[in-house]
Every structure is written in C-alpha cells, then in structure tokens.
C-alpha cells in the first residue's frame, strides 16, 4: 500500500492493526519495520508530510518528486517542526526537530555513534534502566551499522571547514576522531540539513520506512494524532486529524486506528505533549519533566583563504576531548560537550552572525571565507515541556547553572580551535558582535552576555520528557518501554532517555527501538 498522504483520500478512515506507531523517525520507523517484517499488521501515523528528492525512496528505480530541493526556506517549512521557527518560551533556544516521514533523520547530519558505555552505566545505576547495557545493545549497534552503512568518515569527506577544524584541534593537542557516518554514495552537496536530495544519507525516509512498507506497514502522512485512546487502563488506539499539506491547517477528516499495542514515537519534543493531551501515564506528574536537548553554541572564524563551509558533509572530524564535563574541587571547570565543525547555509548563517545593516552585510559577504564550530552541550540543568491553555506545547530550557557554564566554555574552546587553525578573527554569535583576535581576547568570553535575546542557541537532540526508570514515582516508562500506568502503551524515542546521550543520539534511539522490538516479539505481546 505504501505511504498514504492526506490528499490520497477524502473520507474518514477506520483501521485495525496489531501495532500502531505514532511517528516515523528513528524510534518509530524502527519499530514499524521490525514488527511488519515479523508479520504484524502495522499502521504508522506521521504528523508531517511525505517528501522525496530525486529518487523515489519506495522504488529506487523511479524518480522522486524533487521536493527535497535544497532551499533552506522551503526545506525548513517542509521537514522541520514549526517550519523551523519553534523556540523555547523565552525565545532563546531554537527547537530543531523533524516533521515529515522519516522524522528528524531527514535533516540530521548522519553522525552515528554508539552510546558511550559511561552513559549506559549512568542510566542503569542512577535511574534504574535495566537490560540496556553494552552487551544487550551491541548486536543492535552492529545490525544498525550494517543496515545504514555506518563508517568512519574518510579524509575525502572533509571539506574546508572540517580540515581547518582538524588542524586547529590537533594543534591544541585535543583528542579527535573521524565521525561515523550513515551514508552511501554521498555526493557532498552540503544539503544534509535540508534533506538529502540523493537518498545518500541513510535516513529513515530511505531505509527503514521503505522496508516497513515493503513488509506491509501502512504509513499515513499528514496525520496528526489528537488523542491516544485507552480503556480500563489499556491503550487501544488513537485518533488523528488529517492536515492539509498546503495550508498546514487541520481538515475535517479523521483517522481512527484500533490496535493491540500503541507505540508513541513522536520524538523528544512530541511524545510528552501527546501524552499530556491524552491525559495518560501522568498520575505521577512526570510527563514532560527532565527535558534535556543538547543546546549548542556556534562560533565563527574568518580566514584568509576560501573555506566554503556549505559544501561537503557537515562534520567528518569531531573533537571528543571535551565530551564529559570536568570538575575541580566540586566546581565545574571545563568541558561537557562535543565540539564539531559546523555547516550553515546563508539563511541560517545570517541569523546567527552578529549585528545588522552594513556591518552584517560585510560579514555575509565574507561567507566563503568563514568557518564555524558547533558544540552540543551535555546539558545537566533540566527543562520542562508543558501544555498551554490551547493544548499547544510549551518548552522551557533555561540557560542557567552548569548549562550556562558549559555553553560559555564551549564558546571559548570553539574560538580557540578557530584561532589555532589560523583564523584572522573570530566572531561570537552574540547580538553585540564580540570579536576575538588572539588568545588574550578569549577572556572577553567570560563576561559576554548569553541570556535571552543576547545569544541564540539551537537544540536538536531532545531527551527526557517520558523518562525510563525503575521507580514508577519518578519515571514514565519502565525498562520494557511500556508506561508504568497504561498497559500496551509504549514509548520508543529519545524522550525515554534519562539524560542526553553526550553524543549524537540517533544510533541510541535506533538501538533502543530494536531492543524494544525484540522484546515485544519474544514475549508475544502482539
């Protein structure tokens, strides 16, 4: 049957399934594929649209529709939640997430790390996450790496920005390594963030979703779930409204799905609001709590030579030196983030570069000679997802405490790398346009204002919100992935992670969903 889009039918639909999956990103597509390949009747409800590039993902012998057209404006509108304009309540942190078939993997950078052993150990010892250790996850990592062609980025992947970053990082003696990449036949166009036009980036759109469809799964695009249905403490299905693709407004058409189990995989920013709106699994008040999101800082360096950071892959060489925060005498000292080369198109670059008017134009005109770093901080201070009166989600990720310290330190380290790589001048992404010309200037960063409106951050890796744990009083789902309160209701996305992963979370999300699928099948739940 394939992917059914909102424009494909005109009347309400009622469907029956063994497994209903809400969301088609890394978490949902994995469960959908595994269940469908095991012979289960699977229905996927995806809020966003179905967009293809030059090749049809479902039939690679046919051309695609060309909707992945590499324009930042068009693609943010098509594949990003809130058309790329969503922020936290204070406007400081841009919420970056997927809203399309394939979810956030359509815009991710394809960085693919196994979950660090220290993070799995933390989740087990502090939060009571059981059965998700290295040994349990290893076969799933191996399977994922084979499925998605994950491999360390060779030197041929490194664009000008990556080469400068590597040079700077090595000059400083910082630990670095090739970033594992989920790509096949990459043409290095530089439009990963806009959705790969060539089906080379191994997103769910071109891998697990087509496999799920080939195995019989029915994927409804443009289907926004309004409410999860439950009776007598058991999940029984969901009701979705069909969204008009062109206007993004809800239509009068509904899809009601009844299923033996319901798997919520609406993403780290979507699953908690859905549970809150459904009034489910939240008697302990934990849904929406413990939000983390890897807010990231950016720093820019002006070089004498052309860099052309918009071509090639975003991050082929990463600095692992600062992954874990370092304390001294009980106080934060440094680190707590992955430091990477950055990649931005002109629209996003313009938004993050300082100043306005002629000054801003001069910076934009130096775009070919700009390199940039990005640092995903391993945030420790927790945010929260709540519902406004109209039922829409609101997000708080205050830049305070250790988060603020990590962000500030990451800005300093980003500036150091760029200077060490030979930058003539370094610009911070603050509105007042702080400039760093040499090591002595780095001290300016200690007093730069980074509060709301002074500096922007993006947060692409949500975690928490439906935290996994042993204690039903402090978590939403148990280690089985099933909610403590509602039978047959599972969560399979990063919102179950007790903390951020400390590396790109995609492979962890995939592995958790494979593990969940194994256990559902082993136990004969469906």
């Amino acid at each position: 049957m394939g992917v059914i889009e909102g424009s494909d039918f005109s009347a309400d639909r009622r469907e029956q399934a063994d497994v209903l999956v809400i969301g088609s990103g890394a978490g949902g597509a994995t469960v959908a594929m595994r269940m469908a390949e095991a012979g289960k009747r699977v229905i996927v409800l995806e809020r966003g649209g179905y967009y293809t590039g030059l090749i049809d993902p479902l039939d690679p012998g046919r051309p695609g529709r060309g909707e992945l057209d590499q324009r930042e404006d068009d693609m943010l509108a098509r594949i990003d939640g809130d058309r790329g304009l969503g922020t936290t309540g204070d406007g400081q942190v841009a919420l970056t997430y997927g809203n399309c078939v394939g979810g956030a993997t359509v815009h991710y950078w394809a960085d693919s790390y196994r979950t660090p052993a220290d993070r799995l150990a933390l989740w087990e010892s502090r939060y009571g996450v059981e059965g998700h250790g290295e040994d349990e996850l290893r076969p799933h990592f191996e399977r994922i790496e084979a499925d998605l062609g994950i491999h360390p980025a060779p030197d041929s992947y490194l664009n000008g920005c990556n080469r400068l970053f590597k040079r700077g990082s090595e000059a400083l003696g910082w630990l670095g390594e090739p970033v594992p990449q989920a790509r096949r036949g990459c043409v290095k166009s530089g439009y990963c963030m806009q959705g790969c036009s060539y089906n080379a980036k191994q997103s769910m759109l071109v891998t697990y979703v087509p496999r799920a469809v080939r195995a019989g799964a029915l994927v409804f695009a443009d289907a926004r779930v309004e409410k999860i249905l439950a009776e007598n403490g058991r999940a029984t299905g969901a009701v979705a409204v069909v969204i008009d693709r062109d206007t993004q407004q809800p239509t009068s058409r509904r899809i009601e799905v009844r299923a033996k189990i319901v798997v919520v995989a609406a993403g780290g920013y979507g699953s908690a609001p859905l549970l809150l709106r459904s009034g489910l699994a939240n008697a302990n008040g934990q849904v929406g709590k413990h939000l983390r999101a890897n807010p990231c800082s950016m720093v820019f360096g002006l070089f004498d030579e052309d860099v052309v950071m918009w071509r090639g892959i975003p991050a082929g060489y990463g600095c692992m030196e600062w992954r874990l925060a370092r304390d001294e005498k009980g106080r934060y000292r440094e680190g707590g983030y992955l430091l990477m080369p950055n990649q931005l198109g002109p629209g996003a670059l313009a938004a993050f570069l300082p100043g306005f008017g002629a000054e801003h134009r001069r910076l934009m005109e130096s775009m070919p000679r700009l390199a940039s770093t990005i640092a995903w901080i391993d945030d420790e201070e927790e945010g929260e997802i709540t519902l406004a009166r109209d039922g829409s989600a609101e997000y708080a990720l205050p830049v305070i405490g250790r988060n603020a310290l990590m962000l500030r330190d990451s800005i300093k380290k980003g500036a150091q790398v760029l200077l060490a790589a030979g930058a003539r001048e370094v610009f911070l992404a603050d509105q007042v346009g702080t400039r760093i010309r040499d090591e002595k200037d780095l001290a300016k960063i200690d007093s730069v204002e980074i509060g709301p409106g002074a500096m922007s951050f993006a947060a692409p890796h949500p975690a928490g919100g439906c935290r996994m744990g042993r204690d039903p009083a402090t978590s939403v789902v148990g280690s089985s992935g099933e909610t403590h309160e509602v039978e047959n209701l599972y969560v399979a996305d990063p919102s179950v992670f007790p903390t951020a992963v400390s590396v790109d979370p995609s492979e962890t999300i995939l592995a958790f969903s494979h593990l969940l699928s194994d256990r559902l099948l082993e136990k004969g739940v469906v």
Partner: protein
Amino acid sequence: MNVSRSQAKPLLAGHPITRRGFLARSAALGAALGAGSLACGTGEQDYAALLSPGERPKQLGVREYVVLREVADRLVPAEGEKPGALALGVPARVDGELAFHGPKLRDDLEAALQLVEWWPLLSKGSRFSRLDPSAQDAVLADMASSRLAARRTAFQGLKFVTVFFTYTQEPTWPAIGYDGPWVPRKRPAALA
C-alpha cells in the same frame, strides 16, 4: 567563572521569562508607551498611508506591518545594486508565514513590533516609524545590547525572520559568494 553572570537577566529579576511572560510584559510596555499614540495622531490610517497602493498585510495589523517594514529596511538595507529586505518582499513573506503557525507566533511578533515602535518615545520623543534611518539604527543597536531581556528578545526575533527570509532568496547570493543549490526549485513552501 561566576554562575550568576551566566544566568538570564529577565525583566523581573528572579523570575525567568516564559513566552507568555515575555508577551505580557512586552504588551504592557507597548500599551503603556503607546498610550501617547492618540496624542501623536497615530491612527491606523496614518500607518496605512505609508503602504503602497494595494499593499496590505494578511496576518499582522496594519500598524505592526508598517513597523516591520521599517525594521526590515534597517536590518538589511539596500546597498547600490544589492537588494535589501524591502525590495525582496521580506515583510510580506514574514506576514504570509504567520498563516502557517498558531496565534502564538503572531502575538509574539506583534508584541515585539509594538515594543520597537513605542520604546523610542522614552528616549527620543518619537515613535520608531517616524525616526530617520540613523536614529532607527541607534534604537535597534540599543535593543540588541539592552539589559532588558524582553527588548533583546524582541530584536533577536525580528532579526531572525528578516535576515533568514532575506538571505534564503537567490538575488542575494551573488554578492555573498554562495553558489546555490544543485537541483531545481520545487513549488516554494511559502505558498499556501
């Protein structure tokens, strides 16, 4: 490094602003400052007179739309042959974008624009849209570095939508050395 220096400086110390809080306070400020608007003779018709024939916003109020035009023209002014935000139709693009979103974004944008328009009454005795370009630049620079988070946030939001929807347009690319996409454009997503 001192944690307190790293924390947000909200409008009301000790109470981090939320979107609602930002709106409420911005709107209150705008309303208070705008109370002088009647005395200044600033009815909607005065703003509408500044628009081209047939040019009307679809989402924003006329006053807010006029202020958005003024702000966009200062954030990305034309320079010789290089088009600015106005020539590229950025205010209409921003206004049209609001149709795809819930009321929150429109409310936020309107609050930000009211703050821009009325705050200069305090410092310059005139609303923003009546100031000359250099005075408008000074107001925007003051907002960008303000100690008040609400003013900075208003500036940041307006700058984001203006520069993003400017530099995603092809006519700006030659001047910045960007050689553009490798595939043809599909129907622009801006079209509802």
